[in-house]
């Protein structure tokens, strides 16, 4: 089949009428429909794997708006493939988790329909090379998320959603300026063609394009001066949505910096001084975010806010890794970390949601001793949080390790990176600290909660799947690293 990518991008839309038809009678059925569509989508996307492995890249082009420069181009390579697949797995897990988690309260038909719309954006962002379609998908991630956080969240959820919307939309508009400037200079919108065409562009402008893009993407990533929206949005969203927010949406920002800011714009900047200044700035921001997130998480008591701040910290790691460009280890580490962090943080949010749902408590001071009451939960939380803390044999350790290796390698040519890498290694200590504190207070120690409901099977299944993935990626990352580095070589 030749239209695989187009279909895998728009397939979820077709589920919406069915969701509405069935959802009137039972929301469970609606969930089953969207789940089966997501799995179908996953299979469809996986069918490109042989092509990706043999040729390194698979692409499609369609007629769209010829007056605006470029056809609708979709592509997939090792990097897109690994992130998009992880995204779909996480979406499927969140949907399965939602069936029992969301069962009370408002009608869920719209929730599932919005989730289907969101899937279009989430998958599209990773598989398109047309900047305009990229922007479409970028904003497509925003609207359904706004309504899901607002409509099905906790406490003042619409306030959090509002903050999320304004911040990320403001960032997106900066991205739009960058896209406009690129179109003006090159008359084209395809990432790969633009890359070659930009070499002749005015240097001063290129610098500003880089800044505009990176600023916009950094807002989505919640890098420190722009992080204010994240704790609220993540903490007030329903748990499956938090998992997607942390696991995919903020990572889309990192992916976009990798693909567009670094991949398209930066190589055309001729002056090495400017390049290294820009990269140093990213590196410093990364260190600040990593420390800020870890220290705040150490001070928080709200279970979801701890996990949310840990996301800021991890995006700091990723930004640090991105600043190592064009070091191969650094880039492999970043992409691998995106995949690992998606699985680990997604699972951690699901765990936190399940704990909140079944105990009715958010404050970790009031928890304690949950391990004996929900053993499977204790194990899966241990796996996800140890991975987040960077303990060996769990996924995130590998990617952090590779990033630090890249950091030292870069340090041999530019001493600046020795310093930032050292700082990052110190930051991992704090990561370990907040994770241990969180795990100790909630699952170990003396029991403070009398009544704990049993976690239903449908909530446990996605946890088991994600835990397995974390372990596999932790002990046997070889094939994935190979897939990613094959894409970097092209």
């Amino acid at each position, binding site marked *: 089949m030749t239209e695989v990518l187009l279909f895998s991008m728009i397939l979820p839309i077709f589920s919406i009428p069915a969701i509405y038809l069935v959802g009137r009678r039972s929301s469970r059925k609606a969930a089953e429909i969207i789940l089966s569509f997501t799995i179908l989508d996953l299979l469809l996307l996986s069918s490109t794997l042989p092509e990706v492995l043999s040729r390194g890249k698979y692409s499609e082009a369609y007629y*769209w*708006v*010829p*007056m*605006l420069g470029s056809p609708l181009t979709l592509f997939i390579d090792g990097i897109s493939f690994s992130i998009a697949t992880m995204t779909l797995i996480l979406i499927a897990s969140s949907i399965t988790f939602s069936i029992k988690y969301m069962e009370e309260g408002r009608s869920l038909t719209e929730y599932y329909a919005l989730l289907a719309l969101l899937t279009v954006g989430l998958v599209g962002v990773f598989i398109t090379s047309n900047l*305009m379609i990229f*922007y*479409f998908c970028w*904003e*497509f991630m*925003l*609207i359904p998320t*706004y*309504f899901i956080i*607002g*409509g099905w969240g906790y406490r003042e*959820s*619409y*306030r959090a959603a*509002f903050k999320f*919307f*304004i911040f990320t*939309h*403001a960032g997106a*508009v*900066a991205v*739009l*300026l960058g*896209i*406009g*400037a690129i*179109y*003006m200079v090159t008359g084209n919108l395809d990432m790969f063609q633009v890359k070659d065409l930009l070499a002749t562009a005015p240097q001063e402008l290129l610098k500003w394009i880089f800044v505009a893009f990176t600023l916009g993407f950094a807002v989505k990533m919640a890098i420190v001066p722009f992080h204010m929206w994240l704790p609220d949005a993540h903490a007030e969203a329903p748990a499956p949505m938090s998992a997607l927010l942390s696991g995919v949406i903020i990572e889309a920002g990192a992916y976009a910096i990798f693909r567009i800011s670094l991949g398209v714009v930066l190589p055309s900047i001729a002056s090495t001084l400017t390049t290294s200044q820009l990269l140093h700035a990213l590196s410093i921001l990364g260190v600040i975010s990593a420390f800020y997130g870890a220290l705040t998480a150490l001070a928080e008591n709200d279970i979801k806010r701890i996990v949310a701040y840990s996301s800021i910290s991890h995006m700091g790691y990723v930004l640090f890794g991105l600043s190592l460009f064009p070091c191969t280890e650094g880039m492999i580490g970043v992409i691998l970390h995106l995949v690992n962090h998606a699985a680990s943080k997604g699972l951690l949010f699901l765990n936190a949601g399940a704990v909140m749902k079944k105990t009715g408590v958010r404050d970790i001071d009031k928890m304690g001793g949950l391990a004996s009451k929900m053993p499977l939960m204790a194990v899966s939380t241990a796996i996800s949080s140890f991975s987040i803390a960077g303990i060996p044999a769990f996924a995130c350790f590998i990617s952090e390790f590779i990033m630090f290796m890249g950091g030292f390698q870069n340090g041999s040519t530019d001493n600046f990176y020795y310093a930032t890498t050292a700082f990052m290694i110190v930051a991992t200590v704090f990561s370990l600290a907040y994770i241990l504190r969180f795990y100790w207070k909630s699952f170990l120690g003396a029991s403070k909660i009398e009544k704990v409901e049993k976690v239903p099977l449908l909530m446990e299944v996605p946890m088991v799947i994600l835990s397995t993935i974390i372990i596999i990626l932790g002990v046997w990352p070889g094939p994935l690293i190979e897939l990613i580095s094959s894409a970097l070589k092209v």
Partner: protein
Amino acid sequence: MIGILEVLTPSIVLIVFSILTVPVVNQIRKHGSPRRFMSLAWFLAPFFVSAIGIFRLCSDYYAQAERQPFLQVFFVGGEPDSFSSSFLVDSISTYMAIVYLFVGLASCIYAVLQVKVESELPERFFALLFIVLGSTTAATFSGDLLTLFIFWEASAAGSCFLIIYGKRPEAIEACLKYLIMIIIASGFIVYGLSLIYGLVGSLNFWTVREALVSLEDKRLLVVAFVFVACGYAIETAVVPFHMWLPDAYSAALPSSAAFLSSIVDQASYYVFMRVLVYILTPPKILDWTFALATFSALTMSVGNLFALAQSNVKRMICYVCVADIGYNLIAITSVKPLGLMGNLFFFFVGGMTTALAFMTVGILNDMGLETLEDFSGIGRKYPATSLALVVAVLSFSGIPPLAGFMAKYMVFTAAIEANMAWLALVGVLNSVLQSAYLIRLVHYMYSKPPSPGIRGKENRGALLPVYALVASIIVLGIYPSLALKIIYPAAKQLELLIP
């Protein structure tokens, strides 16, 4: 060969129908058995007849567009005399005629479903609507400054009656304000035109243009430009001449507001563009771009800031209209094919979106919901109407895949292309501000509990044209080529004027 009659068919049809409307509808009311159906048929008939007329005109025009991209048609055949009225058919005027007809049809259907047929003497309303539409279309096709002025003032006069229709006290005041403004404006324009006539000896677009290119001493031209531009700026409601617009549109009935904002507003941008870009083409004739860019930035910012401060939703939409004028001016300022493309797309999309917003707000106003507080919780109470309003609001804030995004994208890119990155930056910041207050509206609609006073059912009948517009906004957002195919030749033609 395209004759004068062919050019004017749509306008003539609309005006004839307008004259006949009052007696015919009276007859229908007396004798017709399915009264509502028959009057609806009568109200829709002129649109179909003029659609056929425009279709024929377009096909004839495009058959020979290669030879004569700017086709002039004279009243009495032969050479352009100094006072002979002439009409101009090119890609832009045909495109605008199609836009008016489409959006006009939607607002007409809405008016039929919304204005209570028995109580408020609707036939006069429709007669006015047709005459405004007819004269606007004629103004679009006019080929000299005088014809443009005459038809344009005719449509402005008709708009006055549309604003005042319903005779609410605030409408009378608003109408007076509008009337005074357009009288001042027409005074300015006439004075400017007399200066131009004195300089050139003709008012025909092309004669004026050719004579001005070779003009040495441009001091008098600057004076004329200031008067003409100010005159048309008043009618377009460019800040600082915008005061009449929020009053007029918020006092008018929802169907008049939808119609005026979508037809007369867009037509006034068109006139502005025609005079500035096509006649006083910069930089060859007069370089006004920087001055206009300043006004554009001012208009956007003032419009958005005032909209931010409004608690009445309809007034807020009115200020969004003002801000939209600013975005359109960006595109005019750029004087680039891309900007023109964005501009023409914006005319269409902006017209549809404002019409959609006024229509949905009108439906909700009818149930006594006026302020942001009143709009609390209507998302659950009236889901269909609210959804349409959300689409309008998101399209205003330029969020893909809605058509408003494409329009804004082209406009901002044109500004960067014209070396006015600062203007694009102002536009983008404004766009963020705009989405902030518009999302606040959505926030009210969906997050708060509905106030207990809300009663009444959704007027589902009136939702038919509303959803037609929603569908067009989405389709044009995903596949803008539908409209860009017609716009593209116009953008190409601009290259003939600017070497």
